[in-house]
């Protein structure tokens, strides 16, 4: 909402306040100042006394101007649109103007092509008064030279009023608030709750209220008006806050709205057939509004109608063919109260919003309706002539106004936590127009937001400010929650992955239908993805069931920007729906690796591509002991494996890992193998949660034996590892695979075989092993190996 400083001055004298101080006053009232339009200092009205051609520049003129000091001032000027004698804005040296793009520049005395120029004459654009302008801004000839421009174009504040304060949606409302905070008197009335016009209940043929959405409606008939342009003062007021003057009657309703916050409407009485009916619209009823558009109405919309048709959408907008035009003679002035919900619903449904609907939606003061009608009538009679009916026609009831609120000052102090004296509390509330009556406070009719004790506490806290309240630093102890444990565990994983060369990614959790196909690394049996009812677009209509789709999109984007060696991880929520339609949220951790194993450098000029074994290394680094990759059939990955922790009955599946199908990788511009894994964080944390116990270090040396064997090419190394793991020989401590050799050419060994070499460590915890004991144990093991796998030793 735009509020003109000059207009506020009608109500409160703020002449000694700087704009900055007013900005602060508003801000600490809880009214956000979104912008201030104001002209700078050192900018005055000047009259052009003479103009001659510049001796050295074709396009420039040398002017002598009167800046109000009585001494002519020389200005070099490039504009052509003026005549000698015109009055124009003049920026004197020291004046700071906006040079566009937020950059300020200061006017200085200088020379233009060798001729002294002691200031700058300005266009409307240069002063920020118009987006575009040709030549100098020519001012009204009545203005006196030397008058500061800021007096002609006063500051205008763009204010954001919070929804709980509809009483501030007017100049009077803002002035009332500021006067209370600045402890200044209001010049005129505090509100329009009083009216001296006699009221007459309207007959059913005059005003008929058919809907609860309008509990109170008044009409004032004024005959014999003359529709014409408004006087200068009124036009200037409206223009100062960005409203376009139309004619005196419309301008008065707009002015009164901005002055009091009460919307009004004027009908051309000649265009109304019969009395006013306030009713719900009929289904399919159409309405041509003032904005020239036709709206199709629905039964939940409220209309003001005559005997024939709707002439206004209640509280939102009048009709095109019932409004005031030049030929209008008799008018009906409508002042009413419409329920906020109805106006809001209609406005939203039709996408139709107006200054009126904005105020009705937030709530106007019903008790002010009659008083504002009287105020507007008086203005109409003054500015448009005519005669008003002696009585105000009234239908319905304006209600009783807000109920008194009880406030225990101890309660107030208890909430605020400061020893604010009774006198301060009472003083603040009284300054806001509340009246104390015993333990209760009488609430002014315009303060619709004050209904509970806490509402009064808010007023005290707001006006008192937090500045003067002590800052307490007491705390209670809190035990760690499940969320704390999960957070700490994730932080551990994040740090570990970062040290393993992974960058943490964060993708939007909303993905497209097509991206669902990229959810390779999760298996949600019997679950379905969760779809939004009202997505923004079809790129973001599903909630991700897994993280890998987002990581693939990130990888693809990176590769297109030339970052082809990628290690990314992401942790966060994923979403699926059960067969019953119940949404389930899980925390997942996903990894993506593609490109070279290391960075190309002088130590490794041709780094090799990452493969599944790198992925396994990372998984082992972040998973607790007992990690198993079990070939899985339910993944659409190549080399898909279920990631399990533990073996046998204790095995817990925590996720999936593998290679993205190359065809999909190519579609995403990803060339090298793309390795991905996705793990369930909660399961991973559960598996990791084992107690760590110290084990004694071996006291005696061990003895190792290497064994190389030829096995079928398709025998998984894991089968041999499992054999050693399960082999019952108390002296065998470990078996490490240290060599894998194949020869596709068949020269050194058959092409369908491979050679695996293990290093076996034997140790006796109680004594140093004799060589013979090792040989015996090792021999038995080799026999068993041969029997089990039919291996050939090399």
């Amino acid at each position, binding site marked *: 909402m735009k509020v003109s400083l000059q207009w506020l001055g009608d109500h409160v004298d703020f002449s000694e306040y700087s704009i900055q101080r007013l900005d602060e006053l508003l801000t*600490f009232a*809880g009214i*956000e100042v979104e912008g201030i339009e104001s002209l700078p200092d050192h900018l005055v009205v000047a009259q052009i006394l003479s103009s001659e051609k510049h001796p050295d520049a074709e396009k420039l003129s040398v002017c002598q101007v009167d800046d109000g000091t009585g001494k002519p001032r020389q200005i070099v000027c490039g504009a052509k649109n003026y005549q000698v004698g015109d009055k124009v804005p003049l920026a004197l040296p020291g004046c700071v103007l906006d040079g566009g793009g937020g950059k300020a520049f200061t006017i200085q005395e200088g020379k233009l092509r060798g001729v002294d120029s002691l200031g700058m004459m300005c266009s409307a654009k240069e002063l920020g008064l118009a987006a575009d302008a040709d030549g100098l801004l020519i001012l009204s000839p009545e203005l006196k030279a030397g008058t500061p421009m800021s007096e002609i174009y006063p500051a205008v504040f763009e204010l954001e009023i*919070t929804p709980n*304060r509809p009483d501030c949606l007017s100049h009077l409302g803002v002035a009332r608030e500021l006067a209370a905070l600045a402890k200044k008197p209001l010049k005129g009335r505090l509100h329009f709750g009083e009216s001296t016009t006699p009221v007459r209940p309207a007959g059913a043929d005059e005003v008929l209220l058919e809907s609860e959405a309008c509990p109170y409606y008044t009409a004032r008939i004024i005959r014999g008006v003359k529709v014409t342009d408004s006087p200068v003062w009124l036009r200037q007021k409206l223009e100062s806050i960005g409203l376009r003057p139309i004619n005196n009657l419309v301008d008065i309703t707009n002015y009164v709205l901005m002055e009091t916050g009460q919307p009004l409407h004027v009908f051309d009485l000649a265009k109304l057939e019969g009395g006013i009916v306030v009713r719900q619209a009929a289904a399919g009823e159409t309405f041509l509004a003032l904005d020239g558009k036709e709206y199709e109405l629905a039964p939940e919309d409220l209309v003001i109608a005559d005997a024939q048709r709707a002439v206004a959408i209640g509280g939102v907008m009048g009709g095109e063919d019932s409004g005031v035009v030049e030929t209008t003679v008799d008018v009906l002035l409508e002042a009413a109260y419409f329920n906020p919900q109805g106006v*809001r*619903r209609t406005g*939203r449904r039709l996408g139709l919003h107006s200054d009126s609907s904005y105020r009705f939606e937030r709530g106007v003061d019903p008790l002010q309706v009659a008083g504002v009608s009287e105020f507007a009538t008086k203005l109409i009679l003054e500015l448009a002539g005519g005669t008003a009916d002696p009585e105000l026609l009234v239908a319905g009831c304006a209600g009783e106004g807000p109920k008194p609120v009880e406030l225990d000052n101890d309660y107030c102090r*208890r*909430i*605020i*936590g*400061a020893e604010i004296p009774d006198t301060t509390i009472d003083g603040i509330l009284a300054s806001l127009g509340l009246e104390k009556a015993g333990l209760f406070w009488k609430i002014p009719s315009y303060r619709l937001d004050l209904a509970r004790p*806490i509402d009064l*506490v*808010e007023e005290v*806290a*707001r006006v008192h400010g*937090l500045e003067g*309240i*002590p*800052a*307490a*630093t007491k*705390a*209670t102890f*809190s*035990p*760690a*929650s499940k*969320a704390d444990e*999960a*957070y700490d565990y994730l932080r551990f994983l994040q740090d570990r*992955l*970062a040290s*393993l*060369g*992974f*960058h*943490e990614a*964060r*993708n939007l*959790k*909303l993905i497209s239908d097509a991206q669902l196909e990229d959810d390779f690394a999760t298996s949600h049996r019997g679950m379905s993805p969760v779809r*939004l*009812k*009202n997505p*923004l677009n079809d790129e973001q209509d599903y909630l991700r069931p897994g993280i890998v789709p987002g990581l693939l999109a*990130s990888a693809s*984007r990176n590769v297109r*920007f030339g*970052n082809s060696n*990628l*290690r990314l991880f992401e942790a966060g*929520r994923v*979403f699926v729906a059960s067969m019953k339609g119940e*949404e389930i*949220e899980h925390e997942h951790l996903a990894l993506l690796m593609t490109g070279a194993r290391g960075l190309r*450098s*002088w130590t490794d000029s041709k780094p090799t591509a990452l493969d599944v074994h790198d992925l396994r290394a990372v998984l082992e680094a972040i998973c607790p002991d007992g990690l198993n990759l079990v070939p899985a059939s339910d993944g659409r990955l190549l080399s898909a494996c279920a990631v399990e922790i533990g073996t046998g009955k204790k095995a817990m599946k925590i996720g999936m890992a593998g290679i993205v199908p190359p065809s999909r990788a190519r579609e995403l511009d990803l060339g090298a193998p793309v390795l991905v894994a996705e793990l369930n964080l909660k399961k991973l944390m559960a598996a990791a949660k084992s107690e760590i116990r110290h084990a004694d270090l071996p006291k005696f040396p061990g003895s190792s034996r290497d064994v190389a064997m030829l096995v079928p090419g398709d025998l998984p190394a894991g089968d041999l590892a499992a054999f050693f793991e399960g082999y019952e020989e108390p002296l065998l401590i470990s078996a490490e695979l240290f060599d894998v050799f194949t020869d596709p050419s068949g020269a050194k060994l058959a092409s369908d075989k491979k050679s695996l070499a293990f290093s076996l460590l034997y140790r006796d915890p109680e004594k140093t092993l004799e060589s013979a004991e090792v040989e015996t144990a090792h021999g038995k093991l080799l026999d068993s190996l041969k029997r089990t796998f039919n291996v050939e030793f090399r």
Partner: protein
Amino acid sequence: MLDQLATIQTEALAALAAITDETSLEEARIAFLGKKGSLTAAAAGMRDVPVDQKKEVGQKLNEVREAITSALEVAAADLIAKKDAAAFASIDPTLPARPLPEGGLHPLTLVLDEAVRVLRRMGFALAEGPEIETEWHCFDALNTPADHPARNESDTFYFENGKLLRTHTSSVQIRTMEKEVPPVRIIAPGSAFRRDEIDATHLSAFHQLEGLYVDQRVTLSDLKGTLEYFFREIFGSKTEFRFRPHFFPFTEPSFEVDIKLHAAGRAAKWIEIAGCGMVDPAVFSEVGRKRGDAAYDPDRVTGFAFGMGLDRLAMIMYGIPDLRLLIENDVRFLQQFRG
């Protein structure tokens, strides 16, 4: 004999002084101290030395042996030192490092973690709640009017079954109070969603950090102290900030917190950084109604709540100009936060 020993010593020391490598060192050792070495041979001649001279010659023999042995050791050490020096001389320390893997955390994680560390020192525990929420948890219980614009389908993502994507982490306040009895002192970081088209300053999903403290006699003064301490820890002890009265449906009184931002080359300006206030009694009443007990009787407990946007915090702390950078995951961007 004494002369002979003196000659051997002179010869040996001269030979050792001329040593250049391990081979010549070993040859010298053999030539003097070896089985057939000259000193060994001289020692064998001891038996021919007259008895009255044996003591003197014996002493001389030992002196010579020690002198040669120690010269040998010096020469050997000298050789090793030369070799070491040669080895070091071949190192070019100006060569670039052998690369180690370089990863890092997302800037939002860094900002969140800093905030969490500070708030944990202040006794807050973490809490969480679902991102797919009921309208009751997201709006009704938070005292939001039935026709509040935030509930519009144009502003909030809904599902066919009437649930929605939470529009703020404030729903975790309700989730926590449903389960726990006071005192409750929690922070809840998490995602929230609004139906905004994505541009430099809007994302359809963003990150918030919610705080809630409910106990007997929690006051506005506690809220002020908590947030002042928090922001001074985050932005430095000289940070200027202000509490500006504001309105939220679920707190009363409500404030917004601004900090004064001093960006290079620009006039300092106030930047909104958090919303906060005292929990509205209507919120406690609604929670109490759902719980069916008096644990949150507004006559017995009071509380404060605050919420801040982590994306905005990251933009301010790191000077990030465009929110989209936070979701594009360009490694050239992510690398900047390795710290």
